[in-house]
């Protein structure tokens, strides 16, 4: 034997090593449900054996560190798909509020257009009835109102997306600062051989959260982890973070700037930020544009039909609708210019009982506008666009969700902790310790007896 001291030394070493190993197991169990936790395996190496006095004794063990089992490629895929899914979800939920404007509620454009159309049909049969004339006026006012409501709903969804841009940028900056701090901790703790595993897990979890906010590209640089946006704007470089800023642009919306002040709004893709910008700068402007065009062209066609006839008092027909000066406000500002039902241009020749112009008014509703579609078809296209944008985003999100689940499964099978595995060990340890404890007593007694054997 190497002597009592060696045994003592080994005992102490074993204590320390055991402590760490038990820490690992308890860590594993405590963290079996921690998001992103990676299973830890104690890595031991045997110390060189000691030769002393012609005998060999074990050198004990040294704890080399506890490594985390992870698959970097899986992490990357999961991050990318998470960004895409988050972006699709943002588009979908932003447009949900808009969608009710286009569904059949009675106050939507389809319903008011129908009522307007049938009020003209009724006028055709009773051109001199003041009630019928008034109906047309009222139906026209309802139609204008439904344009307002739809346009206002779209612009407020746009404002909501704008606010989301500001909030998301703030969240991104908070996360990048935290990630940079963890990177600093990592680079100092790895060199001192302490456990970097749980810090790395925390950091990966934050990067995962960041990928929900914007598309990111994560690489390993010489100074540590490098995180940029999808188009290369730096966010984190090792222990240093770079904040994004927002500023009000000429369009009245928040533009995203990198830390040098360069406008990167159009280059942002993925995540909540990418989705919000897409909704605010592309989807909703497209819808508003079509809506404004419809309002403008429809009003013009109907007004023209008005001026081709005469009203019940024999006066030449005047414009039925009035539009605001700027075409961008057409749908929000369209209104009925006539003040009385008697101003509806029913007559083709000025005689009060003639309904000759009513057919022209009706025809304006079914005529092909300069855009190439009838009013009804132009509006149908809008309904289709809104509905399919949302259902496509939902389908994309759900497909990505499946994929992420599969990838996460793979990740868990590589990194995940099984409660059963770990608790099996606990049971075995308990049993073994009980048996060992009994033997300890036996050995104690034995050695007592032997020691007390006195040679004569």
């Amino acid at each position: 034997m190497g002597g009592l001291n060696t045994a003592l030394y080994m005992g102490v070493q074993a204590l320390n090593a055991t402590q760490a190993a038990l820490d690992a197991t308890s860590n594993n169990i405590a963290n079996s449900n921690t998001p992103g936790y990676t299973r830890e395996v104690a890595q031991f190496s045997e110390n060189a054996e000691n030769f002393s006095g012609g005998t060999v004794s074990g050198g004990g063990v040294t704890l080399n560190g506890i490594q985390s089992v992870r698959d970097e490629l899986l992490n990357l895929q999961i991050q990318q798909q998470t960004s895409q899914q988050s972006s699709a979800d943002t588009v979908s939920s932003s447009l949900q509020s808009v969608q009710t404007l286009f569904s059949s509620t009675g106050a939507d454009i389809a319903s008011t257009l129908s009522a307007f159309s049938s009020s003209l049909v009724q006028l055709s049969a009773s051109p001199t009835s003041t009630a019928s004339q008034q109906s047309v006026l009222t139906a026209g006012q309802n139609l204008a109102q439904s344009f307002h409501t739809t346009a206002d709903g779209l612009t407020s969804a746009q404002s909501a997306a704008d606010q989301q841009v500001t909030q998301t940028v703030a969240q991104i900056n908070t996360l990048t600062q935290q990630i940079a701090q963890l990177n600093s901790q990592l680079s100092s703790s790895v060199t001192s051989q302490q456990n970097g595993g749980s810090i790395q897990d925390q950091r990966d979890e934050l990067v995962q959260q960041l990928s929900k906010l914007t598309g990111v590209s994560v690489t390993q640089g010489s100074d540590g982890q490098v995180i940029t946006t999808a188009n290369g704007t730096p966010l984190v470089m090792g222990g240093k973070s770079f904040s994004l800023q927002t500023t009000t642009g000429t369009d009245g919306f928040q533009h995203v700037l990198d830390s040098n002040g360069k406008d990167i709004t159009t280059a942002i893709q993925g995540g909540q930020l990418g989705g919000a910008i897409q909704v605010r700068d592309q989807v909703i402007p497209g819808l508003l544009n079509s809506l404004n065009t419809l309002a403008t062209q429809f009003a013009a066609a109907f007004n023209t039909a008005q001026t081709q006839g005469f009203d019940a008092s024999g006066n030449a027909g005047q414009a039925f609708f009035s539009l605001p000066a700027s075409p961008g406000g057409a749908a929000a500002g369209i209104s009925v210019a006539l003040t009385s039902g008697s101003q509806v241009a029913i007559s083709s020749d000025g005689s009060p009982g003639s309904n000759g112009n009513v057919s022209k008014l009706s025809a304006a509703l079914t005529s092909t506008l300069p855009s190439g579609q009838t009013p009804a078809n132009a509006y149908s296209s809008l309904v289709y666009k809104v509905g399919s944008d949302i259902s496509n985003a939902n389908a994309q999100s759900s497909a990505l969700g499946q994929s992420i689940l599969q990838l996460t499964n793979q990740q868990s099978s590589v990194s995940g902790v099984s409660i059963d595995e770990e608790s099996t060990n606990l049971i075995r340890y308990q049993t073994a310790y009980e048996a060992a404890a009994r033997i300890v007593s036996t050995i104690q007694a034995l050695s007592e007896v032997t020691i007390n054997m006195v040679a004569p």
Partner: protein
Amino acid sequence: MRVNPNMVPNILADLQQSQSTLNTALQEVSSGKRVTLPSDDPNASAQMVQNSIDTANVDQYTQNITSVLTNVQAASSTLSSVVTSLTQAVSLGTEGANGTNSSANLATLAQQVQNILTSVVAAANTSVQGIYLFGGTTSTPPYTADPSSPTGYTYNGNSDVNSVAVGDNLSIQVNLPGNQIFSNPSNNVLGALSSLVTALQSGNSSQISTATTAVSSAINNISQQQGFYSGAQSRLNAQETVLQQDTVTLSSQQTNLIGVDLSKAATELSQAETANSAALAAAAKVLPNTLLNYLPTP
């Protein structure tokens, strides 16, 4: 390769899916609709826009036919009674022309024909709910007394006709102006009657005969004009049938687009409920079972 020890996300994902299917099935059965928002079915929602406009129009066309038929039928029966009056006038004129009448008789006959003229004018001025049937598109009585006129009456109306929309591409003319029916220069009914009155008053038999013949041909004219109204009536009735068919077509198009087959939906609902219960039961068994349950507590 290790098995994924964390089945929780998978089980939860399956549960969510089954819950979502259940919710959709429930929604469809209770609302009778498969599509309530554009994103439920963008194509169907877009087509529904035109469907709703068409449906509203068809309803209104149908109502138009009803109200127009009233006027058309009124005009037709008015003209029938005018024909009756004119026939009577012809027999009065014939009697007056036989040369055996005393001047007192002739005076009486003349007065009777004058009365007929008055009633025909009254008929020409028929109005239904404030609309004059035979005034063209004016809104004042078509015929007013005018001593300076040879017939004693002036036509105040115009020659305009109205066509009423009864279909997407169908308008039906619904009126004839009075100056075509009653005071047409080539066949002036009022003129014929007033000539007969004058002739009877004069007692000249040949004059009376000529005037009576004119009144006879007026009857033919009126009958022809009546043909217009009966033609309009049958066109309106035919269109009414077409519109009824359109209503059915539009209604079933709507059901196809956004409605739900209730018996099918009910079956799907009960299947979804069963599946959901099974998923929940399975999850309840699987989730909490780990060895920890069996670890002896020290």
